């Protein structure tokens, strides 16, 4: 009887470990790298400085979690300077999630992708844009860290 109990307990622990391992593989989010620096130096007279966009960036996403759809949020480590805007767009097929569209980033988590589900490990495009108004003035070179977080959708 004792042997049976031990065996069953071991089985329970094994299953618990399996669910943890499986959980770790349900969701994966990685990015291809950093965007090239945005250096704004031109404008059409009468209009704000020319907006710049990144190119060639991608992200890899896997989201097949039984707990339901997931979402991806983005957050800066500190706000952008006054008069400047950093926006992010993450593309995803409509059958696998919803892209909120260009979202202005700040120090608060902002939903970029919602209702993400049944993505069996695919790579999609993502684009940053940087815009500045004339009122922003001259902005010396600086950086922001963008943290992308994939989590269960509330």
């Amino acid at each position: 009887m004792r042997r049976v109990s031990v065996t069953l307990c071991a089985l329970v622990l094994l299953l618990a470990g399996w669910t943890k391992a499986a959980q770790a593989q349900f969701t994966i989010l990685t990015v291809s790298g950093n965007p090239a620096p945005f250096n704004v130096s031109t404008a059409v007279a009468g209009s704000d400085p020319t907006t710049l966009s990144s190119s060639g960036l991608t992200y890899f996403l896997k989201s097949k979690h039984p707990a339901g759809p997931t979402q991806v949020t983005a957050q800066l480590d500190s706000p952008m300077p006054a008069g400047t805007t950093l926006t992010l767009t993450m593309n995803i097929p409509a059958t696998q999630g919803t892209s909120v569209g260009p979202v202005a980033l700040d120090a608060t988590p902002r939903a970029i992708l919602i209702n993400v589900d049944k993505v069996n490990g695919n790579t999609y495009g993502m684009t940053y844009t940087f815009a500045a108004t004339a009122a922003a003035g001259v902005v010396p070179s600086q950086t922001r860290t963008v943290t992308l977080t994939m989590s269960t959708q509330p």
Partner: protein
Amino acid sequence: MLIKTARTAAAAIALTLLAIPAVQAQTATQTVTFAVNAINQIAFVGTPSLTITTAVAGSAPTSVTDASSTWAVTCNQTGAKISANIPLAMPAGLTLSANLAAPAGATSASYQALGTVAVDLVTGITKLAQGSLAATYKLDATAAAGVVTTATRVVTYTISGGV
């Protein structure tokens, strides 16, 4: 006893299988580098033409103006100015002047005679982007200038001085 233990274990297994955990947050980070350089951009639209044809008896020929031109500016610095000059002096007795409407917060010098030495037309341009501003030209002539055949002057505008 064995059956009870087995039931307990089976229940534990079932709970383990059913207790689907919430997604543990997955994160990825990117570093974004950005800068905005000094930008001072102006543009002018229009091909003004000025012809003096009349006078009031006893006075100099009647001055004419042309307000068909506009200008635009983008400046992300402080205290920039716009000056203008022409490559060749005007014929004797003729004066070509320009008057640029000031964008918000800046100051126009009103009509200023143009010559080969640059003159300031607008000062105090600070961090703005504005278009469709009036650019007006005026031609004055004295009787002593006589009849002057058609001539052209290229007016060069320069924005400078911002910090």
